[in-house]
């Protein structure tokens, strides 16, 4: 008893802080193509090894290898590349627009573009995604009008959300994109409810839910997994593990000795851990989970292993809490570069076409911005004040009617 060491209070720390060398040496990055691909309809009990693997398709030479190769047509791959590149170009441009004082807030998806783009293209038009703010590539892949995004980001008179919502917290029902909110994790359960409604109504609309690795610590995540499991909901439940939740590293969400995908095991769900910077792996895992869900086998939990290459938002400076060059050391590379190399390896793409596409997308974004700026940037144009009082209820009650008059709207 006397020799027993005192109790230790443990507070975890990331591998490196500013001033230290960026290090991902703690990560095990297996070669592409090694992970087995069970039948999509197999029992979850037969695949409890998968959450501890890392499903990768693209190898170091840009070749698609192994059983998870989805054998996508080059045209499909080019659509994916275009969506990812558009997301990158749009983000970079709008980030600068924020710095010019034309809007209040912006968030980039840099480094994570493969996830929304691949899933958007793999899933059906009637499927519904319940997004986070870092899967804008879903909308870009489905051709959401850039100018409407710009209007929303400027909260101007043409804002489809009528000036009521923070920039990029879109809603786009016709594009399978559920209303975003700044509360983390709260829509995970909506996705499960949506999926249950699809099963009840037999509408064949899968729900695709996103949460960050940080907000898997929220109760919403665990309650949603319980409901998804209990009612065998046709849902694809995704965790985008981008390593950082503002300044909190992934270890603070409690997986130092496990993985986020492994959370699935306790709920009796299949859990896949997927290279989120590998467009082909994302598409393949999503197809697998969709096939399973449509066959009434229920939900799959997928952890997309990726890296938030930019700051959390325009209000964040990541060099305050992580090494400034950490992104350059990320071992899974850049998703756009990797898909580009794959297409080039297939002889379906080249540097000239890539440069031309980049210029074309930059021109598209510039045109949308010009059109948005012509209506007005934040504060220079806004929807009619009456919009502030609309949509609180289906029909306004007397308070809102009186207050609208009082506000002079």
């Amino acid at each position, binding site marked *: 008893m006397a020799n027993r060491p005192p109790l230790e209070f443990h507070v975890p720390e990331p591998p490196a802080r500013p001033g230290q060398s960026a290090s991902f040496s703690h990560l095990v990055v297996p070669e592409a193509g090694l992970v087995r691909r069970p039948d999509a309809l197999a029992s979850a009990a037969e695949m409890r090894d998968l959450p501890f693997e890392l499903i990768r398709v693209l190898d170091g030479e840009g070749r698609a290898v192994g059983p998870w190769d989805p054998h996508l047509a080059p045209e499909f791959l080019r659509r994916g590349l275009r969506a990812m590149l558009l997301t990158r170009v749009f983000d970079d441009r709008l980030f600068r627009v924020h710095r010019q004082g034309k809007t209040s807030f912006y968030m980039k998806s840099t480094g994570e573009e493969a996830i929304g783009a691949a899933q958007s293209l793999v899933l059906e038009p009637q499927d*519904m995604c319940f997004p986070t703010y870092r899967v804008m590539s879903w909308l870009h892949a489905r051709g959401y009008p850039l100018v409407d995004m710009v209007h929303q980001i400027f909260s101007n008179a043409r804002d489809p959300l009528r000036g009521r919502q923070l920039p990029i917290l879109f*809603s786009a029902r016709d594009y399978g994109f559920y*209303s975003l*909110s700044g509360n983390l994790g709260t829509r995970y359960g*909506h996705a499960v409810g949506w999926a249950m409604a699809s099963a009840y109504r037999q*509408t064949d609309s899968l729900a695709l839910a996103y949460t960050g690795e940080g907000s898997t610590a929220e109760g919403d995540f665990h309650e949603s997994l319980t*409901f998804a499991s209990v009612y065998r909901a046709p849902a694809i439940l995704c965790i985008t593990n981008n390593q950082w939740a503002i300044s909190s590293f992934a270890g603070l969400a409690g997986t130092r000795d496990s993985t986020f995908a492994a959370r699935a095991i306790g709920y009796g769900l299949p859990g896949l851990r997927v290279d989120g910077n590998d467009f082909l792996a994302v598409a393949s895992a999503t197809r697998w989970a969709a096939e399973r869900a449509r066959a009434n086998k229920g939900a799959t939990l997928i952890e997309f292993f990726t890296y938030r290459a930019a700051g959390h938002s325009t209000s964040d400076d990541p060099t305050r809490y992580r090494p400034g060059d950490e992104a350059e050391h990320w071992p899974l590379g850049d998703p756009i570069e990797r898909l580009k190399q794959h297409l080039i390896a297939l002889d379906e793409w080249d540097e000239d076409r890539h440069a031309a596409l980049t210029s074309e997308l930059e021109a598209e974004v510039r045109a949308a911005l010009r059109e948005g700026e012509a209506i007005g940037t934040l504060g220079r144009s806004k929807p009619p004040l009456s919009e502030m009082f609309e*949509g609180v*209820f289906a029909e306004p009650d*007397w308070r809102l009617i009186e207050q609208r008059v009082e506000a002079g709207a």
Partner: protein
Amino acid sequence: MRELNMVKAINDALDVMLAVDPDVLIFGQDVGYFGGVFRATDGLQARHGQKRCFDTPIAESGIIATAIGMGAQGLRPVPEIQFADYILPAFDQLVSEAARLRYRSGGEFWAPITVRSPYGGGIFGGQTHSQSPEAIFAHITGLKTVIPSTPYDAKGLLIAAIECDDPVIYLEPKRLYNGPFDGHHDRQLATWAGHPGARVPEGRYTVPLGKAAIVRPGDDVTVLAYGTMVHVALAAVEETGIDAEVVDLRSIVPLDIETIVASANKTGRCVIVHEASRFGGFGGELSSLIQERCFYGLEVPIERVAGWDTPYPHAFEWDYFPGPGRVASALRRVMEND
């Protein structure tokens, strides 16, 4: 016409809605096979099937989140939270999601859900089976809050709530399930038998949300109440012989401001009664509204009779509960204060 007690009237409303609308689903803890701890869903699963009325995990936030997602696709879920005291884990879903969804999505998505929950005291339920949280929901714009006081209203308001495209918190005064309890806990308890409010028609009918009922017309003082307190107020009026006008609000959001203002202007006196604790309670809002709109018509200051600002105490249930004696004292004070 047949008479039903309040819990049977609620069961009847759910039964009717399951029959007429395939988009209505009922779920919650113990509501399926067992029929609910208060029997509100008794027999519904047997009659309408497991897919229409089913049990859920013990996860209030998950229950409401699921309902919102279902509602967003077009269903009309009617989740039950077993006691209003247990609704707080779902507060974020109700406030940040259900109440905001239509607004923030520019009308693309909304949550036509009706959250049923037994509330209020008088059953020796202690802190965790007795509270009255209506004011915290009334404060959340985007939510409607409905509280019936008779079986007839319970059925009609519940059907109106289910058919409403906004999220509705439907609070059931559980002390009224079996009879029009007037606060005299030490006397023979009345059942709903013979009460005019217990006559419940068959089939579908609605009582509109936002329309108060003048349950006793009078000229001298206006009493505003809802839920169990309607019956307590009526008893106090009877016992004092004061010619009070008792207004049953029936829903606090939307609020029938016209009926309230007309009555207060007519009588010039007002007593507000609720079971919830006083500070920050809904009575404060009612008092302000009347002061703003009827100041020059008022003869005396507005009185509030409410639960004390303590947690709901077990042994002191009847000291805490704003019974007919306290309401009668308030009525006498406003009449003496000429």
